[in-house]
C-alpha cells in the first residue's frame, strides 16, 4: 500500500524526485508551520502588542527582545500545570474536546494552497471541504461545554453551538458568490482566475474578488469574526458573565490547545479569505507574463507563502482591531443579526452574482 501511495504521490514534482519519506516529513513540518506560525504571530503581534498599544501600555517586555519570547514562556508555564478534570466531568470526552477543536484547524489548513505546487492536497472541491471541516470545531466546543459538568460551561457551549451554526450559513452563501464567479471550487483555480482576470478591460491588478464581491467579502469577514467567537460575537466566552464559557474548567495544556486553536483558526480563516477574495499566494500573472497557473515560475512556491502570510496578517489585523474596540452583542441580537440581516443579504448577493455571470 505504501508503494502505491508513493507512486501516486509526487506526480507534480517528477523532476525533483523527493522520496516519499522526506516528503512526509516536509508535509508534517509544513502543516505544523502553517498552523502554529500564524497562531504565534497573531498572539504576539496583535494580542500582546497591538492591544497594548491601543490601550496605552507596552505589553510584555521582559521575555526576549520586546517580549517576543513571551508566548514560549507562557507555553512553558501551561505545560507544567496539572491536568485537572472536575469530579463530575465525563473525563474521557472532557479530555478529548480540545483535541477535536484543534483537529478542525489542521483539517482546514490541509486544503489551503501556498503556491502553484506548494499545497498539501489539491481537491477539486476544496472550498466545499473547507466549509465542511470548519464546522467540526462546533462538536469539540459542544463536547467541552457539556462534559465539564459546569453551568457556565454548559451555557457557553450551547451559545457557541447556536452561534457557530447560525454564522456558518452566511459564510457558505458568501463563498457561493466567489464560486459562481470563478466557476470552480478548487482553491488554486480560484486564485488563477483572480490573478489572470480583468475588470472591464483593466487587468494590471487582475481581478481580486474583493472588488467584485465586496458585499460577499464583508459578509464573509463578519461570519469569520463570529466563527472565531471574537468580540463583538464572543458570547460563548463572555468572560464577564460566563467566566470563560466552555473553557471555564480547562487548565494547563488543554487550555493551551484551546488557545492555540482559537488563534490558529483565525490564521487559517485569514488564509482562506485571502484565497477567496485577495488573490491568495499570487501576484497578477500579467506582471510576469504568465498565461495560467502552469506557467508560474517555480520560485512562487517560496514567495507565495510569504505573500499569503502578509495578506493573512492584514485580514486578521482587522479582525483583532474590531475585537479590541467593540463591546459584545447579546445572544438574541446576535442571532437576529445572522438570520435577518446577513443571510438575506448573502442570498441577494448570490442571486445578483448568478445573474451578472449569465449577463457578462
Amino acid at each position, binding site marked *: 500500500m505504501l508503494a502505491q501511495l508513493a507512486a501516486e504521490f509526487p506526480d507534480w514534482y517528477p523532476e525533483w524526485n523527493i522520496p516519499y519519506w522526506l516528503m512526509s516529513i516536509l508535509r508534517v513540518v509544513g502543516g505544523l508551520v502553517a498552523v502554529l506560525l500564524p497562531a504565534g504571530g497573531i498572539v504576539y503581534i496583535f494580542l500582546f502588542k497591538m492591544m497594548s498599544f491601543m490601550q*496605552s501600555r507596552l505589553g510584555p517586555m521582559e521575555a526576549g527582545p520586546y517580549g517576543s519570547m513571551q508566548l514560549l514562556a507562557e507555553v512553558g508555564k501551561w505545560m507544567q500545570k496539572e491536568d485537572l478534570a472536575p469530579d463530575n466531568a465525563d473525563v474521557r470526552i472532557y479530555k478529548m474536546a480540545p483535541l477535536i477543536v484543534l483537529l478542525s484547524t489542521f483539517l482546514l489548513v490541509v486544503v489551503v494552497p501556498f503556491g502553484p505546487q506548494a499545497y498539501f492536497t489539491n481537491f477539486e472541491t476544496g472550498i466545499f471541504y473547507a466549509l465542511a471541516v470548519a464546522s467540526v470545531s462546533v462538536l469539540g466546543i459542544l463536547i467541552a461545554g457539556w462534559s465539564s459538568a459546569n453551568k457556565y460551561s454548559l451555557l457557553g457551549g450551547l451559545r457557541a453551538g447556536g452561534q457557530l451554526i447560525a454564522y456558518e450559513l452566511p459564510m457558505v452563501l458568501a463563498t457561493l458568490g466567489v464560486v459562481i464567479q470563478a466557476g470552480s471550487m478548487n482553491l488554486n483555480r480560484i486564485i488563477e482566475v483572480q490573478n489572470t482576470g480583468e475588470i472591464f478591460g483593466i487587468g494590471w491588478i487582475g481581478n481580486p474578488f474583493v472588488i467584485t464581491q465586496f458585499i460577499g467579502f464583508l459578509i464573509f469577514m463578519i461570519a469569520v469574526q463570529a466563527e472565531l467567537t471574537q468580540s463583538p460575537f464572543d458570547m460563548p466566552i463572555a*468572560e*464577564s*458573565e460566563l*467566566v470563560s464559557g466552555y473553557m471555564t474548567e480547562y487548565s494547563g495544556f488543554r487550555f493551551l490547545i484551546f488557545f492555540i486553536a482559537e488563534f490558529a483558526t483565525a490564521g487559517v480563516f485569514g488564509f482562506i479569505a485571502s484565497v477567496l477574495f485577495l488573490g491568495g499566494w499570487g501576484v497578477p500573472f500579467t506582471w510576469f507574463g504568465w498565461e495560467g497557473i502552469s506557467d508560474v515560475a517555480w520560485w512562487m512556491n517560496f514567495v507565495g507563502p510569504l505573500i499569503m502570510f502578509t495578506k493573512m496578517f492584514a485580514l486578521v489585523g482587522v479582525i483583532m482591531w474590531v475585537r*479590541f474596540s467593540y463591546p459584545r452583542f*447579546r445572544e438574541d441580537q446576535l442571532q437576529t443579526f445572522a438570520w435577518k440581516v446577513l443571510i438575506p443579504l448573502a442570498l441577494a448577493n448570490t442571486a445578483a452574482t448568478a445573474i451578472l455571470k449569465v449577463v457578462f
Partner: protein
Amino acid sequence: MTLTDRQQLSYIASQAADARLNVELETEGMTLNIGPQHPATHGTLRIIARLDGEQVVWAEPVAGYMHRGYEKLTEVRTFPQVTSLVNRIDWLGSFANEVPFILAAEKLMEVEAPPRAQVIRTILFELSRIANVSLFLGDLGVQMGAITPVFLAFRDREYILNLIEGATGGRFHPNFDRIGGLKDDLPKGWIQETKGAVKKLEEFCDTIDDLLFGNEIFQSRMRGIGVIPADIAKDYGLSGANARASGIDWDLRRDQDLPLSYDLADWKVWTHPDGDSWARCWIRLQETRESCKIVGQLLDQIPAGPVMTKVPRIIKVPEGEAWVATENPLGEMGYYVVSKGDLGPFRVKIRSASFNNISIVPWALKGVYVPDIITILASLYFILGDIDR
C-alpha cells in the same frame, strides 16, 4: 365513599399519566450562582439566579462576604480616628466618605470649618467623585467585552489620584478631613496642576462618549434594559445617579444646606426620564463633566485664610445626635452619630448608597436574560466596600 379496586387502579394510572406528562412538559430550571468569585462582580457580591433557559426567573443578591464591622469599630475609636475607618467604605472615592462624618461631628460640636477649608473640601470631594465615576465609565466596557476603555480610564484617573496624593498624602485613603477644617493647606502649584488634570478628564469623558456611548452595540445592549420607574426607585430607596436616571430630580449637593461650597459654582443636576441602564450610565457621564466644571470654577474662588478653626487639642463631642448625608459618588451617604460626650461616638449608623441601591436587584433582574444581568448590575454601580461596611 369507597372506590373499587378497578376505580382505584384507573385513578392511580391517570395520576401517573398526568405526572409523566408534567415531567415531560416542564423544563427544569437551573440555579446559577454568580459569585462571590466571579469576574462580573466588583468584589465578593454573590447573586443567586434561578434560570429558565437563559431567562432569570428569580434572583437575589447575597451581601456580607466582606463585612468589616465598621459601625461597631467606630465605638472603640475616638472621633478623629473614625475617618481612617470610613475612608475604606467606598474605596474609589475615599475622601467623600470622610466628609459627612466630619460634618456630623462638627454639627454636634457646633463648629464650622473656615471658608477656605470648605472650598478645598468641596474640590477634593468632587475630585474623588471623578476618580470614582471615571473608573465606572471605563469598567462599563469590560462588562460588555470591550476591554480598551478601562485602560484609558486607569490612565486618566491617575492624574486625579496624583492630585489627591499631592494634596493629602494618600492616594486611596487620604484621611485628610479634620473636625474644624483640614489637616493641611494645599501644596504649591497644586491649583495649576488641577486645572490641567480637569481638562484631561473632560477629554476622557469625550473619548468615552465617543468610543462607548456612541457605539451601536453598546446602545442596543443598554437602551430599554432594566427599566426602573420613578415610583419603584423611590420605594426601594435608590439614590444618586440611579434615582436621577429614573427622573427623580433630587441631588443633596443642591437640595441641602451644608457647609460645602456648591453654591459658588454654576452647575446642573442632570435627570433622565427613561430609567433604563443607558440612562444610569449617561447620567454618570454627564455628572463627571459637571464635576469637572465645578472643580474648574471653584479653583478660581478659593478664599485666603486658615484651613482650620480653633478646636480643643483633645476632642470631646458634646452629648447629642446628628444626621448628615451628602451626595457621594454612589448616591446618598449619611452618618447618624450618637455621642454621649466621650472621646469617641457612642453609636454610628452608616447609610451607604450601594447597600440600598442593590436592594432593587431582585426586582430589576426578574425576567431578563443572563447577559443583561451583567449590564444591569454594572449600570446600578455598586462598590462592594459600600455594601459590606
